[in-house]
């Protein structure tokens, strides 16, 4: 049974790289929703400033402090809106044959990758604002945590879910909606990975390229 054990080094340069693909951007309405939220916050801050200033003036106090505080608050709201704009533009997802990556962040940047074979549960959530803007949030749950991708179009979210279902070892009862027909929508083209250049690995230890698809269903003991 046991063959000679080999453990040569792998040239990681030959492996498929997440960073060599372009990430798909989120739906433009997501940015609009964020900006609308920022505008609403700014309006509330301005209104509070005006009300407080009028109150202070009626009491005979100096309004300068209130106005300066209000302006600082407004500046922070605008700054946060600018940062959110940058953040949303950076956000994106990448679907490869065997995994899904999601990147986000403004000052600190994060790229999270979850292999489909580790996904245990997929769900699509749509809050009231998301429903109005035609957006959806896709959640992939594994035994080690959740990746939540907000700001997807409904079509993209549904198609992504189909991609994950087709490739992951997920139980059908985990889904809250019936499968949408038609397979992949045009918006999230799954980037097919280049075939893995066979790294110099012992043939008995690791599958040579192309990668064998992961299990699609758990085999029962009846098999």
């Amino acid at each position: 049974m046991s063959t000679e054990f080999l453990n040569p080094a792998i040239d990681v340069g030959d492996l498929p790289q997440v960073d060599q693909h372009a990430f798909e951007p989120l739906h433009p309405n997501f940015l609009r929703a964020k900006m609308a939220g920022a505008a609403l916050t700014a309006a509330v801050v301005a209104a509070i400033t005006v009300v407080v200033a009028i109150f202070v003036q009626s009491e005979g106090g100096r309004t300068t402090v209130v106005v300066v505080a209000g302006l600082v608050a407004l500046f922070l709201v605008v700054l946060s809106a600018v940062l959110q704009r940058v953040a949303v533009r950076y956000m994106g997802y990448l679907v490869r044959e065997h995994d899904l990556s999601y990147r986000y962040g403004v000052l600190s940047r994060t790229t999270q990758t979850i292999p489909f074979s580790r996904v245990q549960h997929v769900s699509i959530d749509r809050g009231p604002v998301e429903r109005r803007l035609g957006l959806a949030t896709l959640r992939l749950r594994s035994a080690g945590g959740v990746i939540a991708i907000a700001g997807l179009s409904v079509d993209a979210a549904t198609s992504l879910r189909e991609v994950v279902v087709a490739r992951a070892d997920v139980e059908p009862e985990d889904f809250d909606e019936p499968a949408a027909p038609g397979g992949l929508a045009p918006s999230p083209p799954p980037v097919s990975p280049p075939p893995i250049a066979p790294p110099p690995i012992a043939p008995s230890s690791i599958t040579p390229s192309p990668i064998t698809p992961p299990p699609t269903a758990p085999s029962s003991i009846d098999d």
Partner: protein
Amino acid sequence: MTDLETSDTDRAALSEPSRQSPLAVVFLAWRVVRGISVVNLIVLGAVLTTNQLPVSAFALAPLVVGGLGILGLISWWRYTFVVDGDELVVSRGVVSQNRLVIPLDRVQSVSLEQGLLHRATGLTRVGLDTAGSAEVEFSIDAIPLDQAESLQRLAADYRRRSERSRDATVEQHAVGSDQIGSQEHEETEVLVTRNFGQLVRIAFGHWPWAGLVLLAPLLAAADDIAELIGLDFLNRLEEQVGGSPDTAVPSIPIGLIVAGVVLAIAVGAILSWSLQLVRQVLTDWDLTVTRTGRGLRRVAGLTNRTSVGSSLDRVQVLRTSAIPMQRWLGIARLNMVTVGDTNLVVPGTTQSELERFRELVFEGPGPDLDRRLSPAMVVLAVRNAAVVAVLATVFLVQSPVGWWGALALLAVPIEFVMARWRLRRQRWGLTTNRLGRVSRFVTHRTEEIDPIKAQSVTVRQSFFQRRRDLASVHIRAAEGRFELPMIPLAEATALRDLILYRVESTGRSWM
């Protein structure tokens, strides 16, 4: 006896719907009491002790106890379990009947625990852990030991058969073929035993204050205890000083103070180690870790004897730690982080035992831990220390401390030296089958993970790291995680790609 015969015997032992031992009534009634919640019981206790209640209220006590007894009796009567085909079916519930059906191949582990009452009566408590998309955990309070062991073996057999058929259908030349084959062997190999002498060494290998933690609950009543044993002279002294400032307090010679402090430390350490030894004996008495065809099993305990098992595949991360005392004694604490609630912890592990566990959990030799983290770690640590030190100095200089407050700035060079020391003593390395990290600071720690255990991989760059082309890598397993905090970005992304390649190209399951 062959595998099949064992399975049939075990199945026969569980084929009829069984009740627990009548002793379980006690445990079930206790569950009801616990269900009332501790807070309510405390409130009840407080009401009773204020003597506000008429004496007649106490006449209710027998009624309450009787009620609990009847409730326990009904729970016991209605609680049955049976192995029906491939499923364990548990029926329970006092008012509404609750039927729980658990496919045996989903049961991740069956642990046995014997308290004093159990041991006197040859019974055991059984804990079942079925980790999965829907996590279910429950326990059966008191059933005969042989029946519990039958359930344990049956569940392990089902899991093994399920894994074998899955691995066979997934990939013919899986890397794990060696492991699948090795599960065939039914011989039991004793990996670790601990006698009293070794427990003494383990207890001695803790920090001198570790045992005192056991006394922490007593702190709440410290004043009363001090008064009880006549140690409240400090309070009396305080009262004396506060009450009559003119009274001359007799001066205590400095030598006596030093001797007193040394004596207090020595007594504290001896007390601590004694308590630690008691704890060690109670929890790890006659500790045995065996390797069976089904995985690893750890049995230990003096009054409460626990038996925890796990298949090797459920081990996600392997960690060791050794404080200076433990290194002096040549031992370390091994923690095999497994899926589920209970990790397999082996105290007082020697180097050879450690290597044996590594052989079992991982395939092939470990990585050369020759890679370093970036020196930027020092810059970050010093920068953070400087910010805190400057703020502290500004605050202290304006306080009565005055310019002495500037001494807080000394924290910066100290942190610089410490950070350099920490950096120099951290290494990591990888092979295709193992990713390892070691930190040899005051406590030596190692952490190892097989890349296929990864559930997700994250590459993160803080603003500080982005300016220096650095990144951190976070690997999340089903239980536990592995992190490399500060490595070059190119190395981080290459590592991420390698881990993904390993996860996606193997047919082996992560559990």
